């Protein structure tokens, strides 16, 4: 008797067409060359003028699908954010979204900050990467107070520690939870439920269609 795993007893991806075996290279977009188009050129000029260390702090500028992303060294994040808020009038940060790329060695965890300037009606995005082994990124709560809960959520879900946050605790998961659910190595389901002494197995272990 061979061992079967998962639902429906399918092995691998369950793909029966054969096309599922095609191999795709993971995409890691390179830097975009000028002109960026739209208001992005003007914005980059303004930022270079307001921030002399631009070329040192910003590792990559990507324009994709009409959106501008500035990739920033994490040590310089607070400086750049302060300049963007005060000099380039990005009054609002719309939060933090974490992304986990286990294949990008040394830069597995990424924090993405969408910024909005109401004065100029513009949007840009900041991206900061850090290693899983040293998952620390400076907090932006001092710059945009509204990032408080967003950083707590990203800490909760990805385990990114935002240095300087006034109270970095879990926000959505229970305080005593183990692990960070949005990481790619964290399984969906897989958690047994205990209630009044009885244990209900996790959905992934509950039934087997064999």
């Amino acid at each position, binding site marked *: 008797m061979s061992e079967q795993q998962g639902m429906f007893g399918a092995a691998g991806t369950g*793909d029966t*067409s054969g096309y*599922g075996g095609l191999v*795709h290279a*993971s*995409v890691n*977009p390179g830097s975009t060359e000028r002109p960026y188009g739209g208001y992005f050129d003007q914005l980059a000029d303004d930022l270079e003028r307001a921030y002399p260390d631009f070329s040192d702090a910003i590792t990559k500028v990507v324009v*994709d*699908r*009409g*959106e501008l*992303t500035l990739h920033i060294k994490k040590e310089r994040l607070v400086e750049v954010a302060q300049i963007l808020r005060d000099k380039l009038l990005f*009054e*609002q*940060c*719309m*939060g933090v*979204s*974490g*992304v*986990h790329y286990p294949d990008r060695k040394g830069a597995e965890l990424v924090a*993405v900050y*969408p910024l*909005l300037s*109401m004065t100029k*009606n513009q*949007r840009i*995005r900041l991206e900061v990467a850090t290693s899983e082994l040293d998952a620390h990124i400076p907090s932006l709560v001092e710059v*945009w*107070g*509204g*990032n*408080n*809960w*967003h950083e707590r*959520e990203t800490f909760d*879900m990805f385990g990114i520690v935002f240095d300087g946050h006034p109270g970095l605790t*879990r*926000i*959505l*998961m*229970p305080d005593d939870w183990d692990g960070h*659910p*949005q990481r790619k190595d964290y399984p*969906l389901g897989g958690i047994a439920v205990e209630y009044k002494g009885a244990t209900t197995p996790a959905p992934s272990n509950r039934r087997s269609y064999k």
Partner: protein
Amino acid sequence: MSEKSTTFDPYASSRETTEGTVYSVTGGDWDSLVSEIGEAKEERIIVNMGPQHPSTHGVLRLVLELEGETVTEVRPGIGYLHTGIEKNMEYRSWTQGTTFATRMDYLAPVFNETAYCLAVEKLLGITDQVPERASIIRVLMMELNRISSHMVALGTGALELGAMGPMFFAFRERELVLDTFEAITGLRMNMAYVRPGGVAQDLPEGMTVRLRELVTTLRKNFKDNERLLVGNTIWMKRTEGIGYLDLAGCTTLGITGPVLRSTGLPWDLRKMQPYCGYENYEFDVITADTCDVYGRFLIRMAELEQSLRIIEQAITKLDATHGQPVMVADKKIAWPAQLALGADGLGNSLDHIREIMGTSMESLIHHFKLVTEGFRVPAGQVYAAVESPRGELAAHIVSDGGTRPYRAHFREPSFNNLQSTSAMSEGGMVADIIGAVASIDPVMGGVDR
């Protein structure tokens, strides 16, 4: 005190801890609690309000520190409705993602779907190919949804401050809108009607007639609530100057929506960064300059009329585009069959079944691949925002080129705006917290996702 030690009351018990005495209060026993705390000679008490409290908008927990009746600190506790929607979406196809997204903010399902679908369409590069009629239907559904959502905000907000009448009227109007949703999509809530590339199906025959009647009825009925609350002395005493948050506070806390517009800034994404063809509709952005609960209430009341205006224009456009497609023409993305209501009351497409089962093997393969595996989306990341009833609702979606989202994150206005509870309530009276929270209009399904 002595009574307490001799008889055990399961609904109003107290116990000693290292932090001091802890009382359980369940309502109706407030007098006995007050007399007991009076004996304790301690003015500073900490109250756990919620997570199961009728006036905190669902499972929201507020930890309050009180000096007498003055609030010195408010700490909102959330996460009681966390369902892992973002994680789940990584395990489902791009089309199935709509079904998850719609369940986040359960009072504004159409906005969740639209934000998600706009992001997916941007990733696919098909934003310009979405048919005009599909965009009109999206606008129609969003504005209907804005009405039903504002009705809950107004109705429950009034109920929480002690006015029961407005709630009856508000829910009467909401019911009319939900019935319309049911007629169009088959479901009252969580309808997963907006899909990447368009909408799931066209409006049923004769729908525009019914919509015109709905607009007339709603416009007449909205007056009932207006007469009850606008200018009402008691209502104004409970809401004027309460929950104050000015423009600087809103900006630093990332606040959008009616709370931001109550500071006088006319920021509305429908005007500033139009999507779904909002630039083709005439409507006004409503503001107030009072920065308080009453201003936010007036904004929501006035936005109802603006939504009706947009709906009327959408109905005219729908009549003009009758019979046009509601899904992109690209058969590698569009759902293979356009379902129609059959005589048996079930949705089906007999022509399509005849084709895939009887005539074309390739059609069958295509149908099977698209429905089970789904379409692929080119790698990259996008951010797409819509103006939901509560503010900027945005989807940050990352694709690695596969048939499922690599990462789906939603910037929920409820989640962000709930942070302002402390700024609005600290230093005020404990009873005013309720009004302040109601004016933020948080929906915990959206907050916790």
